[in-house]
């Protein structure tokens, strides 16, 4: 038995029919994972990760190929497989109206865990997940991270021999993410469990024993994370320049030939080149003083981007000049957004308690926080979507309570899920928003033209928006929010669920807008994206924990163990400090 592979896919194909079109979700995928290891399934949106998971769990039947789980043919004996695997779907459906204990009991019953073994197993799981104090709480009342941990506990109530986890860390704050990984590794160590885990966070790939890279239903490679990143040695660099900002530098580098990828990492720009060695780039780097180029330790993400993009330049096409007019340069000190002692109460619960900050013109300002930290509530109040309980909000110099319609005319808003009218075509959506913002006929025509060109939507103009690929939906949502050339752009988790390639493109556009003087306010839970902000606040439990530039934040947590702390380190540090302070005051 020990030599039986945990999971074997032999040339598995699976096609779905959606909207009259056949979509090849998996194309002749062949995989073999060894027992007792954590295998990461990595790929952008639409790579076929979820389909693969469901096939392994016996929830789907393959069109062609064979699947063996723990030596059992899934197609022939799905029930047998289902009694020895644990599967946590993307949204683990906890019964929110049942308590933590009742959810556990249900899965123990369904998995046939004998009554006498339960007490010990429950104790162990509750201890591991830190849910012990909450066993009687309804699952619906748990935080996002706790729900995810409970979902995992339910899946583990009878230790499965193979654990399938579909994007278990999506939408989970960094602290809970760390804990989830802890639990997974403990299972592998203690129970000898095999784990297959899919993720969209590329940094998590490094934590896996082995990685399977997928793209558009095809398997691009399988190996240890190092086996992917090692060939990149000599192609990864850190570039920084004292004389110009990191965003400008990144913009120039990503347009340069021979550069596959250029992203902001900390205070530097991380560059991946097409061939070994750093090209000289006389054009892109001309006239930059204090340029500092150093080889960087290759990481999985470098390999991922390089593999997916092949040899293409970082930006496939130059991002069209998005800013058609330049907002007056930020010479005056006048804040564009000013928030003073903002409060929001729901019943006797304070979702936001006394938040204050100022945002200058042309700044990219970030709101960071875990689920339930109050960032969305704050954000909604700033857009005028939620009445303010107490405090002041000035947006574009207008008090939202009195001049809401006028203030709204000057801001653009992009909601979390790219809220578009899915039944309308791209063109119909754009036309509608042009009219909704009261654009004149000539200007509307010009702006629609601009949107179709600038966001490369021309060929999709008559496609129903609901049928667009996710990345294009995001573009359309952004174009719609920019129809009226707003002074301020509000972005609510603009990149959640979007794959790393689309995220890069998106941030390039945002940078260009900010350079032209548009003020951008953004919420995100991707910690690495916080580096794109000029300044940011970190929120927890409705309060601002810290405000400053990303460099300031990280500097506060520099110590011997972590000489170069990441934004995630800073975030976790702040949350932990806040929690211990609270416990201190409570004691």
């Amino acid at each position, binding site marked *: 038995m020990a030599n039986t592979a945990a999971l074997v896919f032999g040339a598995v194909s699976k096609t779905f029919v959606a909207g009259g079109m056949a979509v090849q979700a998996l194309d002749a995928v062949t995989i073999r994972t060894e027992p007792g290891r954590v295998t990461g399934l990595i790929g952008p949106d639409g790579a076929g990760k979820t389909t693969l998971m469901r096939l392994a769990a016996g929830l789907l039947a393959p069109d062609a190929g064979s699947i063996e789980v723990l030596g059992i043919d899934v197609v022939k004996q799905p029930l047998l497989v289902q009694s020895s695997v644990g599967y946590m779907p993307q949204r683990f459906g906890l019964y929110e109206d049942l308590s933590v204990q009742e959810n556990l009991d249900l899965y123990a019953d369904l998995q046939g865990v004998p009554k006498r073994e339960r007490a010990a197993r429950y104790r162990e799981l509750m201890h591991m997940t830190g849910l012990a104090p909450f066993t009687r709480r309804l699952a619906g009342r748990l935080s996002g991270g706790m729900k995810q941990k409970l979902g995992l506990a339910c899946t583990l109530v009878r230790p499965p021999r193979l654990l399938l986890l579909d994007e278990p860390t999506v939408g989970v704050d960094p602290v809970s993410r760390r804990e989830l990984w802890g639990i997974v590794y403990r299972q592998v160590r203690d129970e000898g469990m095999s784990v297959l885990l899919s993720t969209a966070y590329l940094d998590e790939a490094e934590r896996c024993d082995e990685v399977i890279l997928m793209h558009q239903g095809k398997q691009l490679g399988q190996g240890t994370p190092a086996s992917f990143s090692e060939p990149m040695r000599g192609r990864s660099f850190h570039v920084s320049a004292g004389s110009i900002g990191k965003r400008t530098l990144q913009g120039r580098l990503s347009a340069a030939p021979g550069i596959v990828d250029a992203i902001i990492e900390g205070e530097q720009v991380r560059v991946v080149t097409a061939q070994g060695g750093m090209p000289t780039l006389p054009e892109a780097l001309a006239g930059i003083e204090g340029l500092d180029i150093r080889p960087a330790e290759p990481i999985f993400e470098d390999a991922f981007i390089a593999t997916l993009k092949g040899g293409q330049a970082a930006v496939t096409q130059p991002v069209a000049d998005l800013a058609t007019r330049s907002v007056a340069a930020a010479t005056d000190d006048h804040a564009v957004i000013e928030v003073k002692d903002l409060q929001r109460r729901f019943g006797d619960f304070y979702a936001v308690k006394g938040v204050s900050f100022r945002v200058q013109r042309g700044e990219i300002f970030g709101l960071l926080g875990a689920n339930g930290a109050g960032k969305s509530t704050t954000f909604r109040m700033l857009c005028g979507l939620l009445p303010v309980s107490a405090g002041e909000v000035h947006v574009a110099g207008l008090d939202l309570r009195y001049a809401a*319609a006028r203030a709204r*005319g000057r801001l653009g808003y992009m909601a979390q899920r790219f809220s*578009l009218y899915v039944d309308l075509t791209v063109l119909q959506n754009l036309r509608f928003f042009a009219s909704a913002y009261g654009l004149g006929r000539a200007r509307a025509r010009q702006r629609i033209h601009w949107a179709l060109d600038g966001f490369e939507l021309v060929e999709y103009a008559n496609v129903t928006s609901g049928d667009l690929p996710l990345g294009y939906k995001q573009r359309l949502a952004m174009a719609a929010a920019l129809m009226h050339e707003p002074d301020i752009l509000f972005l609510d988790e603009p990149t959640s669920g979007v794959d790393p390639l689309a995220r890069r493109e998106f941030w390039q556009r945002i940078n260009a807008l900010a350079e032209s003087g548009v003020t951008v306010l953004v919420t995100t839970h991707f910690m690495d994206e916080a580096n794109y902000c000029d300044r940011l606040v970190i929120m927890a439990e409705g309060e601002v924990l810290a405000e400053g530039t990303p460099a300031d934040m990280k500097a506060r947590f520099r110590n011997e163990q972590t000489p170069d702390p990441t934004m995630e380190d800073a975030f976790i540090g702040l949350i932990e400090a806040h929690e211990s302070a609270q416990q201190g005051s409570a004691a």
Partner: protein
Amino acid sequence: MNTLQRVLALAIKELLAVLRDKKSRIVLIGPPIAQLIIFGYAATFDLNDIPLAVYNEDRSVPARELVARITGSPHFRLITAIDHDEQIAPLINNREVLLVLHLGPRFSEYLKRGKPAPAQVIIDGRNSNTALLTLGYLRTIFTDFNIEWSRQHGLRGPPAELQIRPWYNENLLSRWFIVPGIVGLLTLVITTIVTGLSVAREREAGTFDQLLVTPMRPIEILIGKSFPGILIGLVEGTFILLMAIYWFEVPLRGSLGALYLGMFLFLLSAVGIGLMISSLAVTQQQGILGAFLFLVPSVILSGFATPISNMPEIVQQMTYVNPLRYFLVILRGVFLEGDSYALLFNQYWPMAIIAVVTLAVAGWLFRHRMN
């Protein structure tokens, strides 16, 4: 100018959103036609082929003639002839027949001697309405028989005769009553469903926030969102109207203008209620449930199938806030009674008031019901 443009844009968008989705197109077309046909044919109080058993112990000519008059009527159908008492109960109990006509052995003897000859009729009263109607048909046949018998045998007829004339629906066809009502019923259902989900759907998709951050004012959103409901209601209403006139051949005697004025006011109030439900509902699920909770009582308490005047006083007062109540009067008034504007004034203004109130509340809810 801007307002007009924005409202128009929203109205067009709303209409496109409803019509471009295949599922909602089906919902708009399929059920109304099916319901129109089923209601039109099935929802009738007129009785045909009432199953009948005859227990005739008197084989004389007059008795046979009376039986023939009944069995010859299109309302009745002879199932069986029986010959003793014990057969009656099982036939009625098992619903094989609705009534048994019993003529005693001395029926013709009484008749010839000029004494009142009893004709016993046993009716299944499990459906009291059917029982009463059956009795009504029988009475008419018996009265005709009596008058003719009296004339033939030189007897004195009754000193006073009833001359009953039903106006507006001379043959008392149920269909003439039900089918115009369907125009009101179906336009109400369609309009409530279309508008009842319009805000909830946007809320679920997150587009309502997107709409609220544009410079649109609640009143503009309100007008823009009302438009498709009214337009679709008018189109469907017109279609059912045409079906009523040409397919079901219900006479249209009054002013079409008066009918459309009523329809417009009715749609406004239905849209108002739909939007109110919609802005209260967070999910489409709740929107559907809300629409259902509104539709069921408003159909029952409208006078669609059973008269309002039969309801207890307190229930009758509840019907005053039901727009369908007024529109049904307009529909039947215009179709059958040939009414025009003046006679319907008392139906117009309550609907106008309901429309103003519900639309105002809906507009207020748009902005004040967030989270």
